């Protein structure tokens, strides 16, 4: 019963996040990047940028991949499993929250990340709003 209630709560929270817009951010000094470059980076097709992830299975993680690449979690996992297994790359580093993402992006000119729109501040630059 308790688990069910928790799940319900979690679902409500997810719905709340869903309602909130996600933006892709880069280092303010970085050149402008296109959506294709971002998608390629998160699907392991290109090593040009250094993408960072939020926690696997988190609402923003799921929402980001769905909006940016049109794929669900399982597909993303399969894609990165394959890349990892065949030794062609490493999946993006997982960070616990948007603050950690901003911190990395702000520190790294090559980095790219995604956070809630509301979390955007001057340390990063929004290159792609996802809504």
């Amino acid at each position: 019963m308790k688990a069910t209630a928790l799940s319900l709560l979690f679902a409500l929270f997810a719905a709340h996040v869903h309602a909130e817009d996600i933006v892709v951010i880069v280092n303010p000094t970085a050149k402008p990047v296109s959506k294709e470059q971002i998608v390629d980076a998160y699907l392991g097709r290109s090593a040009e940028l250094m993408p960072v992830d939020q926690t696997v299975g988190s609402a923003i993680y799921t929402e980001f991949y769905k909006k940016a690449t049109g794929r669900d979690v399982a597909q993303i996992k399969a894609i990165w499993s394959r890349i990892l297994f065949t030794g062609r790359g490493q999946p993006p580093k997982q960070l616990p929250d948007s603050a950690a993402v901003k911190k990395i992006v702000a520190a790294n000119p090559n980095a790219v990340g995604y956070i809630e729109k509301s979390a955007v501040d001057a340390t990063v630059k929004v290159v792609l709003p996802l809504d």
Partner: protein
Amino acid sequence: MNARSWRETLHRRVGRITEPQILFPLIAAALLIAVWTATLGVVRLKDAEAEHDAALLSRELLGTYEAQVVRVLREIDQTLNLVKFWHERNAAHGALSELKNRGLLPPDLVFSVSIADRDGAIAESTGPVGTGSVADQDDFRKQRDAGTVLVGQLPQGPTGDRKLLFSKRLNTPKGDFDGVVMVAVDAAFFVSGYDASKLGEHGVLGILGTDGVVRVRRSGESMFSGDVVDYASVLPKSDEADAVPPLSRSSWDGVWRWSTAREIYGFPLAILVGLAQEEQLATVRKDALGYLSWAAAGSVGIILLMAVLGRMSWQLAQSRLRESESRLEHARRIEYLAYHDGLTGLPNRSMFSKLLTQRISEARRYNKQLAVAFLDLDRFKQINDTLGHEAGDQLLIDVAARLEGCVRDSDTVARLGGDEFVVLLPEMDDGKQASIVAQKILSVIGKAFTLIGHEFRVTASIGISLYPHDGDDEQTLTKNADIAMYQAKAEGKNTFQFYSEKLNANTLERLTLESSLRHALERNEFRLYYQAKRDIRSGGIAGMEALLRWEHPDLGTVTPGQFIPVAEDTGLIVPIGKWVLKTACMQSVAWQNEGLPPLSVAVNMTARQFSDEYLLQDLAAILKDTGMNPQLLEIELSEALLIHDVETTLRILTGIKSLGIRIAVDDFGTGYSSLATLQRFPLDTVKIDRSFLGEFIGRSEDSVLADAIIAMGKSLSLTVIAQGVETKEQAEFLRTHACDELQGFYFNRPLPAYQFAQLMRAQTADISYIGTRAGLLNPEL
């Protein structure tokens, strides 16, 4: 001979091959064999190539997969070792988060690392924690006793998000069991390298334990685990790394694959790679189907092409055949025409002489007889003249048909030309048989013919010669049959005659005469002799009779008695008679111009001449041309001729008379003509036949007869001439019986023109000389 015949046989066989009905099927068969051999060869080659390629690919994929799996396993092993080291060294909690923060753990996405304490409770984990304790798991229990890496098993069935668990024992510093470090990896991860572009939907990629339990295997998008395979059987038999994997049937799904397995060094695991036969060969099978379709289409094309070519060639050959046949037909026709009579279709003369020659040689070889029968229609010329050529031709056709109808098949009927036919009887036992056939022919020909609506009857004359009796070569037999035929005609026609030697002598002479006679006029071989007629009272020359002589270059002088009948029969008498008349008239005119006394000239005329339709025209023309006084010309006709057809004779005689020509009856007294008949004719002279003179001297009854004939002539107011006077007694008798003129050897033999001219000149100069010669004026007589 053998070599040659072999060569000929070979040549014939090779020749037969070029015949279209053999050649084109042969070419077609050769092409079909070539096409199908090539196609099947290519298909088999491609198939073998594809199989080889698939096997090689399978091996290559195995190598790649091995490298990937080994790398991942090393990483896992390294992680286990790292955690173990950290844990054992620091002996504190929080090893995992420490390591993770340092980025030393593998990505959370796939790997989840946990540590269980010595009781099996999960102390720490990077992934979601399941039950919180692994104390009841086999691996955990095993790790208490062993220090190796253990690979957990998965339950049988489709593998979704199930994980493979790798574990290692943690030790206390003293070496006691202090828990387990575990790395859980999604089973799917190990087969995420499945490349559908190479492995297809039915290939297989998998990992199995050395215990034979399949940890995970993937075909297409489907993943399974838990099957048990015969571990020994999936490993290659030989140790050679580059051995080509064999085709085998997978135990779990029954698919044929080139599959091979390889043990992973340092782990109780083996990898498995397989390529499905059906899938790998699909392309080449499809290609093969394409090749076979092309070959089939090509075959149909070849067959059609060959059929078309064969048909065209056949048609060409047929048309050539037809052409050569028509040429042959033409040649046959030409030959037929050369050897056959166009009108009746019977063999012609050339064919007949060939056949006869052939039959003679056969008869000679087999000692047999044969007969040649010549046949000539008796009145054919008349029919042709009166009914026209078409009727004549029809008659010949009918006669030919009848002849063919009455002889045996082995006999030959031929037409030699005109109305002459010949029958060759090649199988004769004796002459009697030939006469039977001849008789049969005569009776068949004798039956009525219907020509242009009228019935006609014709007769034929047949002459027969026999081989070998009458000749042993074609020419002799033919000639002798011809001679016999003439004889049959002479015998009175509508009869047949066998050849005999005697016959030959007579007829040959006649034939010779006939042919010479045809040329006699052209060669100017005729001469006229003149015999004087004496006036019985004065003894002077009262006139003359022109007599024809033939100076034959070989035979010498031929008398009219010998050749006139021939000339009469052949009709040559007409031109000869004209020549005689003209020559006699010219001579007479010439003599008169010389100053000799104008004397009458008598010229004999035969029946044929007399009945010639142009007689009167010819006479008139001759008189005109020569300037002859018609009163001096006398035509002598025999009594028998005159009484043959009185009315016609009267008409002709009147015509002659109207020209002013005198008419004499020759051989008077032999024709038994009545006085009344003679009276009707416009006659001038009668000549008493010599037969009355030959015997009457000394016999009173002959004298009376001669006397009566002379008296009869006198009573008709005709000049009476006695001819053939050869003795003095005869002359004396005639003189006393008041004959007018005399003619005969007693007075003058017939003389050539120049001698006769001398005679006349002599008489003019000395009449007594002639009188003395004549003995008439001799008073002593």
